[in-house]
């Protein structure tokens, strides 16, 4: 029995040692640019604070290389859904200086300030940016969403 415990202890000790080494290697290795949590937020205020916008894939998951629909939800600061907004979308990969492979646009209004954005496609992993220009009764504003794949 005692020898079994020695094994377990030794195992735990070695695992800790390995974890330490791995952590050291990992921390010193060059890292891909990381974005702070707020920058990849799926929900944020528009540039001039006119709206609160959130942007997420309609089916919950992002799939590389596939055309997908996303939902853009627009509310006022008071939480009232924004209706009848005109939305234009542009974007690309800032680190590679190329644009979007498709031209996504709002295809349906789903009520409650929710707009279906069709034709969103990310062809490679990395940082993508989507710029939205939004015009509604309250005025015009813009918002940028970062999507990291």
């Amino acid at each position, binding site marked *: 029995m005692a020898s079994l415990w020695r094994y377990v202890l*030794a195992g735990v000790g070695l695992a800790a040692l390995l974890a330490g080494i791995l952590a050291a290697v990992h921390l010193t290795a060059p890292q891909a640019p990381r974005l702070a949590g707020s920058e990849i937020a799926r929900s944020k205020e528009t540039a001039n604070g006119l709206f609160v916008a959130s942007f997420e894939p309609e089916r919950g998951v992002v799939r590389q290389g596939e055309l997908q629909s996303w939902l853009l939800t627009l509310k006022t600061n008071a939480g009232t859904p924004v209706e009848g907004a005109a939305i234009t979308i542009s974007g690309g990969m800032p680190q*590679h200086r190329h644009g979007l492979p498709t031209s996504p646009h709002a295809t349906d209004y789903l009520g409650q300030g929710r707009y279906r954005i069709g034709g969103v496609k990310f062809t490679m992993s990395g940082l993508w940016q989507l710029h939205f220009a939004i015009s509604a009764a309250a005025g015009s504003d813009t918002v940028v969403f970062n999507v990291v794949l």
Partner: protein
Amino acid sequence: MWCSERWSKLNRFSRLFALLAMAVLAGCGKPEFSDAERKTIASLALSALPPLKDDTTNRFADVPAAAALGATLFFDAGLSGDGKVSCSTCHKIDRQFQDDLPRAVGVGRTNRRTMPLAGVAHDSWFFWDGRRDSLWAQALAPLENPLEQAGNRAAYAHYIKARFGERYERIFGPLPDLSNVPANASPLGGDAEKAAWSTMTDAQAEDVNRVFANIGKAIAAFERSIAPQQTRFDRFAAALDTGIQALPGDDALSSEEILGLKLFIGKANCVTCHSGPRFTDGGFHNTGVPPVKGLPPDRGRIDAVRQVEADPFNCFGAFRDGDASACGELRFMVKAGPELVRAYKTPSLRGAATRAPYMHAGQFSSLEEVVAHYSKAPASVEGVSEIHPLQLSDRDHAALVAFLKTLAE
């Protein structure tokens, strides 16, 4: 024996430690890749290729009899204006379905290089400029192109009825009555063919177009079976993924090839466009490849947008099977913008090393020239190149070429 004696004398703890230490040391002997590099390498392996998606616009896409008829038609020179040219004249089965020429030669001389076909059914756009949006619509273009097969759709409908009537009808249903259809007629042909086409009733035109579209659907069903092959790189990637070390000389990559791989996915940025298991993002990019002197201006993707929109066989057209939900690529296509000028479809790099020349008009005759082009990154004659000059040594150049060769053996 001394060794085993000593070994048994060590207590169990030390033995365990020694084993682990050996494992760690063995690990250190392997090529070192960061986690991000490993992830990228895994994404390039053939094993990451998803199964071919259904093509709902072609309900015969996965019907074996259609693929068999398509194979016959692909190799049939009877399907041409002069009876001498088939798809396989340019897309040679023993040459990765291309012809090793800078520019293809059919009934006449074309201005573009023949594209290899492995894995082509995974794409959304076809031709160097993507002027067709389905594999079956693509197949109709060379059949009527005066420089390629140089025939016309009325003649093809008659030919199918005479030669393959029974096979056709078993797949597609009854052939239409063609007795009053002119022998040669097409809305795209020469003056005589156009005139003949204009004498036909709408129903006759529709009948001929339907047979013509079905020729494309049969050929597309065949082309879906042309798949990319496992390469040395894939065996290496699989070994790296499982952690089982490759045998030297087989799955292993040399240190030069590993340097090339690291450059490809790192400093040289190749993987930006040549991504995924086919080494292509399926998109269009201006890479500053110079035009060939003496050829008419070629503006790439920007001119293809109108052509695919105008194609009666496109996804929005009357010959699509299934519903329009399959037409997302056409619906959300980028239609304008400076980035489309002289943008061409990123080619797959699988097998590229053994099928020079390169680029849309065969501008470069070796991989060395290709890498030198990327390293220098000249400005584009029109539009803006997305390529930026690289600081590569001679050793780096050779390494990139060496790596590309692992994708062709």
